[in-house]
């Protein structure tokens, strides 16, 4: 019996041989619970750019430009955005919204990518620790990000957004009206500028290489902030008189983006793993490719369009588009739109050949928008490594700032010669192509200063000279649209504000008589003569804003009911 008690006591000791700490093991040993602000800044910057450019799931970007490039007729797709069909369940709309506000898990890497929540933490931590350079950058990023959201959706959560971990613990942010948000963004930009220039702050941490936009260059941050202000004032010019504000900004041009390198551009790299390439490069490694070049965009650049820049061929074409086929090559399947080696499909097409695979012969995004291949006219099918993907995402460039100035002069809100600024803008747009291809395809030829470039600038300037003010506005906006290729939010905004550039409309009797659009005569060298006209259709009106993402609406009781995109306008939309 005694022995048995010894046994039992022994097992009892084993069973209960535990201390108070036995249960105190619930601290995550795998992930930090606090992080330095110089780790948050690059994260926020990555988050911002991942949702504004193109989508590439494989490298964890859900970019709204993938939809808006179709809506601004730079791309054609067979997917939902065709015929303005992107609904609140469209995955780019949902993905870019989510990533803007809250970090989203990448599909093929361990990363979480997101902007505003990281910005919010960054600002709070930076202010608390006296690192106002970081705080100021955070505010400028935040203001810019929200301006994008208002421009895309009209009304969005702002005052109550990203307040979940604050005292208020807001779980269901209300949607603010766009016109109430804009003034706060301008104030936020001013606060950001004040912060980065604050001389009394301790600034124990100073941004450097962790700043993926400007590598810590404060002067350039200030230029960017001022130029964003200029852009915002310009965008609301039809809602109120902004002449005082814009004149004040234009009075000190050195405080604005004033050179190519000043531009607000996000540098991508060429590394496949970890992938730091421009998401727009996605179609190069992809088997099934989805981004066709819009024939509308292409034909304007070729000088085919009868009403704008007619007969003026754009020398930027080999930087913009890469043709996987030679002019006389055999396509993979019957083509819908062919112009020599250029192969694409129409917006709104219901033609027989629209759905035929052209992955090996379709024309792709080139070096300028995507870091793809410079078109050396070889007509070779691309592989995953044909290009580098190292093209920067150009959010706000020196060219953009010049186009804005030209528009303001055209509208009578600023002084100066619209023509001079317009010419300067086009010249800068061409220099920008060299800047980008210098990063993404260093062996590509230089364009600026070539005879072709000079001839083009002269020709489009002459066209500008010969037309009335309204048409001049169309030319400014059309050039800006061409220059923007690769980032489409501002072009969507510009079109809704100004009605320019003119977009392709399948229901327009001149563009598509009888519901058919005619591809170039003799465009197909294998079958000379007229290519078969392509039936096109469109049953939706132009979306004045994008529908709100269902992922937000379904779980946010404070959200409004889903809008009808064709009638719901941003406050600055007076068209």
């Amino acid at each position, binding site marked *: *019996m005694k022995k*048995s*008690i010894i*046994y039992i*006591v022994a*097992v009892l000791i084993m*069973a209960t041989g535990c201390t108070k700490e*036995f249960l105190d*093991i619930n601290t995550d040993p*795998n*992930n930090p*619970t606090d992080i330095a602000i110089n*780790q948050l*800044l690059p994260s926020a910057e*990555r988050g911002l750019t991942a949702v504004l450019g193109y989508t*590439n799931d494989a490298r964890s970007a859900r970019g709204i430009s993938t939809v808006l490039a179709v809506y601004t007729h730079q791309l054609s797709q067979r997917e939902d955005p065709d015929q303005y069909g992107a*609904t*609140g*369940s469209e995955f780019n709309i*949902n993905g870019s919204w*989510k990533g803007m*506000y*809250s*970090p*989203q898990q990448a*599909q093929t*890497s361990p990363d*979480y990518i*997101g902007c505003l*929540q*990281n910005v919010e933490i960054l600002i709070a931590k930076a202010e608390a620790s006296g690192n106002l350079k970081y705080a100021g950058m955070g505010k400028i990023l935040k203001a810019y990000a929200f301006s994008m959201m208002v421009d895309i959706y009209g009304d969005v959560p702002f005052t109550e*957004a990203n*307040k*979940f971990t604050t005292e208020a613990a807001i779980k*269901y*942010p209300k949607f603010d009206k766009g016109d109430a948000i804009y003034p706060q963004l301008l104030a936020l930009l001013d606060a950001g500028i004040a912060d980065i220039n604050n001389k009394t702050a301790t600034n124990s941490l100073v941004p450097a*290489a962790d700043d993926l936009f400007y590598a810590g260059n404060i002067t350039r941050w200030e230029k960017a902030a001022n130029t964003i202000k200029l852009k915002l004032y310009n965008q609301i010019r039809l809602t109120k008189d902004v002449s005082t504000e814009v004149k004040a900004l234009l009075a000190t041009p050195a405080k604005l983006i004033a050179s190519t390198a000043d531009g607000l551009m996000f540098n991508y790299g060429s*590394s*496949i793993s*970890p992938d730091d390439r421009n998401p727009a490069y*996605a179609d190069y*490694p992809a*088997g*099934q490719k989805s981004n066709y070049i819009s024939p509308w965009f292409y034909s304007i650049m070729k000088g085919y369009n009868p009403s704008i820049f007619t007969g003026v061929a754009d020398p930027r074409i080999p930087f913009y588009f890469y043709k996987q086929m030679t002019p006389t090559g055999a396509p*993979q*399947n019957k083509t819908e739109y062919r112009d020599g080696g250029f192969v694409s499909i129409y917006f709104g097409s219901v033609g027989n050949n629209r759905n*035929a*695979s052209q*992955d090996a012969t379709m024309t792709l995004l080139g070096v300028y928008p995507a870091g793809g291949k410079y078109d050396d006219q070889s007509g070779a099918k691309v*592989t995953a490594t044909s290009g580098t993907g190292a093209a920067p995402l150009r959010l706000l460039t020196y060219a953009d700032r010049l186009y804005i100035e030209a528009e303001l002069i055209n509208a009578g809100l600023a002084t100066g010669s619209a023509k001079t600024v317009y010419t300067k803008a086009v010249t800068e747009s061409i220099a920008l192509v060299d800047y980008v291809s210098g990063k993404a395809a260093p062996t590509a030829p230089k364009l600026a200063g070539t005879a072709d470039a000079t001839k083009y600038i002269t020709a489009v300037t002459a066209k500008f000279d010969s037309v009335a003010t309204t048409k001049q506005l169309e030319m400014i906006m059309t050039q800006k649209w061409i220059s923007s290729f690769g980032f489409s939010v501002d072009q969507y905004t510009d079109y809704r504000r100004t009605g320019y550039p003119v977009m392709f409309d399948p229901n327009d009797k001149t563009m598509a008589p009888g519901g058919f659009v005619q591809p170039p005569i003799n465009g197909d060298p294998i079958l000379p003569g007229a290519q078969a006209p392509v039936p096109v259709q469109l049953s939706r009106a132009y979306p004045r804003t994008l529908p709100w993402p*269902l992922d*937000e609406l*379904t779980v*946010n*009781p404070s*959200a409004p*009911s*889903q809008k*009808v*995109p064709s009638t719901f306008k941003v406050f600055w939309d007076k068209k």
Partner: protein
Amino acid sequence: MRKILLFCFAAFVLISTQVSGQDLTVTGMVAAEDGSVLPGVSIALKGTSRGTTTNGDGKFTFEAPANGTLVFSFIGFQTQETPIGNRSVVNISLKNDVSQLQEVVVTALGIKRDARALGYSVARVDGSELVRKSEPDPLKSLMGKVAGVDIRSGQGTPGAATKINIRGNTSLFGSNEPLIIVDGIPYNNTQVTTSSQTSGGGAYGNGLSSLDPNDIASMNVLKGAAAAALYGSRASNGAIVITTKSGSSSPGKKGIEVNYSGSFATETIANLPDYQNLYGTGSSFTYANANGSWGAKFGSVDSVAVWPNYLTAFPGSFPKSGNIAYKAVPNNVKDLFRTGQVWDNSVNISGGNDKSSVSATMSFLKHSGYVPNSGFNRGSIGLGGSTKLANGLIMNGNFSYSHTNQSGSVFGENQVDGASSSFARNLFLGRNWDITGLPYEDAKGNPVSTNSAQYDNPLWAWKHNTVNSVNDRVTGNVSMSYEITPWLSSSYRIGVNQYSLFRREVVDLGSRGSGGLGAIKEANYTNKEVESNFLINFNPKPIGKFDLKAFVGHNVNARDYRDQLTTGNQIVAPGIYSLPNTKTQVADRSNYVQKRLWGVFGEISVGYDDIAFLTVTGRNDWSSTLPKANRSYFYPSASLAVNVSRLFNVPEETFYGKLKASVAKVGRDANPYSLQNTYQVNTPFNGQSSASIYPSAANPNLKPEFTTDQEIGAEVWVLKKRVGLDLALYKRISKNQIAPITLPRSTGFDETFENFGVISNKGVEVDLKFIPLQFKDFEWNFHLIYTKNKSIIEELKPGVTLIELAGVLTDIKPVAIYDPDKGITKQPYGALYGTKSARDSEGNLLINPTTGELIPAIEPGVVGNPNPDYKMGFSTGIKYKGISLNALVDYTHGGDMYSVTVTSLLGRGVTRDTEDRETSWVIPGYYGDANTGEPILVDGKKVPNTTAISTNGLYFGQTFAINSETDMQIYDATLWTLREVSLSYDLPKKLLAKTPIGGVNISVSGRNLWYLAPNMPKYTNFNPESASFGSSNISGIELSAAPTTRRFGVNLRVSF
């Protein structure tokens, strides 16, 4: 804790003072024929009123004269008399009494109880029912056999996970699978998911696949919370208690027995669609190198251009013209697949003497699937032994090791960017594609197909894009028991169950996935669980008509796992699949997670005159995963059983009736590390490191969640056990769920963990046994089971209207939805949520006047309920002498399914459903505005649709198949399955009398021989049992899954 120590100490003091100075006694142990010990056996001294009962370990101590005779009686066994004859130890084995009705069942913690005393449902499945059915998966072989248990298969390739669910879903996000206990130790049944099963990933297996069915002695299904509550936190979904052969040996089993069983089965794809062979690829009756078979009619075009990818890769293999004949390839899908095989061999050796016994099992299974290069191998060994030491301490121990190796390819939805599903096109190949008739890889080893950019040639994918998982599982446990006095005993068990998985996923050079550059993922996962249970049993003599049994216990559970995943991108040297052979490597994750739990528990059971039994239990847990203040939580249960036949003095041979009722509560803790926000460190970008807040917001104030379970039921047997009915009704309410609330992303977070929500599960279970004919050597029996469960979201949290249970695709996801403002209540758990087609207020479809097709509605909604209305299993058997014939049919009524396979079959125009296509169609409905989704009114009236569309448009446009809104891609999953047919023959013992062979059984069996899904499009022959998400909480969604299988097998069992 201190209190318990005190309590135990007090108990010992009590024991040591009482147990002294006893006279001569007879001790012994009572076991059943199978060697399992029998507690509660009545022992009487013949001719006197003196008696006792055996304790929880089947042991007794009794004072008796040497010339006396002991009478052992126990319900379900033949009464046996044994003269003592000067022995001080009398061990005895009782024979089963077939005329008796009841049995001993294993309840929580391995405690055996007379089934009559139980106030809750426990179902027992004998090990022999799990083998001999050409089914290597122990869970699948339970299909249709136990009421209340819902088993769903996943992918049709070997080793793929099976989902099991008892009495519905109690947790929004936690596991809804039952706790699985093998030989007293929890058995981790996790499905380790390495890559998203939406965009790729393999047919991952779950942990239980490492358990060898040959080694299973019995499975007890503890359905309700009352049955399982003592197992603690994880038992709110019920428990499956498995005893292995090696784990069930106990002293007193004499002799040596050797059993061999071997089986062989062939496996084929269960069925393929009926394909049309009139039209080839293209659209609008015009040939093109497209995916859809909507092109020119065969015979109308003589030849077509060779597919460019084939022509480039094999220029010499085609005519100089570059054209080949345009003709149907009727068997192009069938020829992709092969006949798989299952080889299973197992040997069990057991033996023992008075004091000791030992049992060993060795098995090997080799299973090759119908998909080339898919397979599952399992080798296992197990050894268990038991001995009684001279001082009376009984020691048990067992050890098992199993190794499994699963191979297969990549699945998923091929339309997701970068994915490379090996089933991307398989079932809907263009009718003129000759995949098997042409080579599948070029000289460089790259895949070649009709369109290499869109899909990898499946023959190539199966060979090159591989998912291999190797599991090693080691279990070991030691237990000791000791009888302190005849009415007090104690036992202790400690065991460990360690499971490690190594998985390698390869997307090879040239694949559509990974940009053709190749990628390798290596996952390492190790899960270790240590469980310790200390028990003190009180088994005092009956006091008058009252019989009391009780125990108290203490439980320590420690779990930890390590989870590592590394991706190597860009394979350098072809054909070598190791991480160093990649250009760059990214550490995706490397987590170490710990969880610990303590519990104390107890049970008191009081019986009155064998008429009524009341059992009360209680358990208190302390969990490491909850905040300190909320770490301790208590939950009780009570159950009552009333023996009606005894109450009214009806002989049990003619009528046995039991009424049962129980109520129980089970608590559950949180996942580890849910209390603190963390940051995720990202991979370097342009050489720059960065970190992001993790978007799942933690909550430092979590409380435990509780499930309350009420059950009533009855068991009735009449006509000498020829008709038996077991009926149970239950209602379970799960409250205070620890679940993430899906946050609007504008908060900056995806979700936050809170305690909220109410899920109810209400159900009915019927188990009816009936023997219509029974003669001397002949029996014909029926067994019918019926399971109905409704899992309803009763409430979320004020303001919370919808929670995503998992992300699948933007257009389809399982949700919990409760939105009384919109009249959306009483929605099922896991409701399928997706986009809808616009309808007018009367429910008519709205048609786009421009296209004649449907219009997407502005608002999405619930489009389906994946939970079946009810399930039935119907089996029958005929036995004549040694021959028996058994058949099992199961039926699933209702349940909705989103099927990519079906919509693709229709949308690609490959089945006979779309063969009649030379007509045009007008979709009934009214014209609508594509901008607003509202009807177009002319003079205030709706305009009926008159716009005709082609058959091609009817299935390829925004209409009724692949390019439609989600609501048009949902089908009713009602299914009839002829699950099992087997014919077996026991060789007459006479024939074997002169051989060392004790018995021989030969059987042939067929599995899944036939099925009918009446509400699926007719010629798709789609079996809605296919599913893409294995044992996860996602059901009713199929993304190009591998179809189910059919097997024929022969089996041999020999015992020596």
